Every structure is written in structure tokens, then in C-alpha cells.
């Protein structure tokens, strides 16, 4: 539990420390945007499994998800327009009647998530790959979405 007080922080009314933290987080996000994204502040969550990281380089978008224990055949990846759908099921085999559990934290179940990509894509050039429980979907950008160098005359 965080009980630290932020003294002299302008604009923060005296509320519970948690509410103050939340307000601070939002302020930071507004001010710093992506800069703070990887410095330990909570990433934004959509609340739908699986959590996705989307990155881009010049020619492609990369969508990644942590899907441990899910086989490629139990996964369905679709693109439609600018939308990407990742659906599937995580199965955990039963260990039989004769075992006793000490911990049971891993969960099985179905999931389905749709997300919009930030730019136009080339639906013919989409590749999906599972490596060590990480799904990587590489989606080629449409020509219109690629950055273009403009020569200054």
C-alpha cells in the first residue's frame, strides 16, 4: 500500500493518496505521453485478454501478445479493413484425480479481442508467428500509410 504524501504538488486537492496518485498519473500521461509509458507507470489497459503491444517501423506494424501454453492451432488471427482480431482458447490439461494442488494460478478459457491499427494496411501481407509463447503478428503498411521523405527545394 502506498502511503507516501505528495506535498506541494500543485492542483492536487487533498484526497486519498491513491486518488492523488491516479490524478498524477493522468497528468503525467497528458504531459509526457509516451515518454513515461515505459518508466514503470501503469500501461494503459483495454481490459480485454490478451494485452497487446503494438509497435511500428517504416514498413510494418507489429502486434504482440503473451500467450503462454497456447498452441498455434488454437489461435485465430484475422484482419478486416484496419481491424485485427485475435481469438483462441487456452486449454490446460487435467492432471487426473490423484494429484493435490498447492497452487493453481494459471487459467484456461476462451478469448477474443479486436483492435484497430493506426493506419491503412496491406491485408495480403500479414504474418503471424508463435515463439516461446509470444504471438507476433507482422502487418505490412499500405503504401499510403508509409512515411515519405519530402525533398525540400
Amino acid at each position, binding site marked *: 500500500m502506498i502511503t507516501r504524501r505528495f506535498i506541494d504538488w500543485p492542483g492536487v486537492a487533498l484526497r486519498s493518496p491513491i486518488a492523488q496518485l491516479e490524478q498524477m498519473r493522468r497528468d503525467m500521461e497528458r504531459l509526457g505521453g509516451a515518454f513515461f509509458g515505459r518508466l514503470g507507470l501503469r500501461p494503459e489497459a483495454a481490459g480485454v485478454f490478451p494485452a497487446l503491444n503494438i509497435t*511500428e517501423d517504416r514498413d510494418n506494424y*507489429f502486434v504482440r501478445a503473451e*500467450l503462454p501454453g497456447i498452441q498455434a492451432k488454437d489461435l485465430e488471427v484475422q484482419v478486416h479493413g484496419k481491424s485485427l482480431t485475435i481469438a483462441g482458447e487456452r486449454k*490446460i490439461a487435467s492432471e487426473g484425480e490423484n494429484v*493435490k494442488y498447492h497452487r493453481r*494460478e*494459471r487459467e484456461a*478459457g476462451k478469448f477474443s479481442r479486436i483492435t484497430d491499427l493506426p493506419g491503412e494496411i496491406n491485408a495480403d501481407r500479414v504474418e503471424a508467428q508463435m515463439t516461446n*509463447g509470444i504471438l507476433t503478428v507482422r502487418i505490412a503498411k499500405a503504401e499510403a500509410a508509409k512515411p515519405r521523405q519530402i525533398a525540400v527545394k
Partner: protein
Amino acid sequence: MTTAKELQVKEKQEVSSAAEQTKPGLVFTPAVDIFESDREITLLADMPGVAANDISIDLRDGVLTISGDVKPWESAEEKDVLIEFEVGKYYRQFTLSEAIDQAKIDAQLKEGVLKLALPKLAKAQPRKIAVNAG
């Protein structure tokens, strides 16, 4: 187990300083299943992104330590668009109450899930105790 259940997003649990870290980077607690039969204890741990040769398993003085390093999988040219999960190492320790046959420990990594079989020593296997009516 019902299969119709929908999977929910769970925030990755950061390790709350079991030992001070000397290397920079985030460290997470992997979700585990641990179960035992008469002969062995089995541990399943979700460690997505860890390659087989980046896992280390250590058992000494009844304490089992599993840790896994994650190599960054993004190339340097990639820029973030949306980040919903953080990437980091995995680390977790367990105390084992039973005597384990160290020589027969077996570890397998498949699709980001570590499966560890820890066979019990013969003397630790359960015996039926007959109760004599006096």
C-alpha cells in the same frame, strides 16, 4: 474445468524485492500451478518470451528458485504505438517441504510454459500407517 469461461486480463505481478536486483529492468512473478502426486511434485510456470537456455533452476537447502531472462524481441527501429504490457525477467522462489531426488529433476519448456518434475526421494513417499486397536 469449464472451457466456456472467458479469459480475463491479469496485470503482471512485479516481484516485491525478494532480493535486491543488481541488473536494471523489471522482474515479474510468473503464474504457477504446483501439484503433487505420491511420487513427484510438478510445477508449471507461465514464462512467455523466455528461451530454453535463458531459464535457470536452482534447488538448495529446500528452496527452489526459478528465473528466466527475456531478450528484447523488438528491433531497434520499432517505435511504440500502444503498450499494454511490460516486458521483463521472471523470478520466483518456493520452499519445498519434501526431500527431492536432485538427480532426477526434469525441466521442459514448451510454448512459454516451464514444466518442472521434482521426483520425491523414496523415503519421502507416503506410507500407509496401520493403526492397531489396543
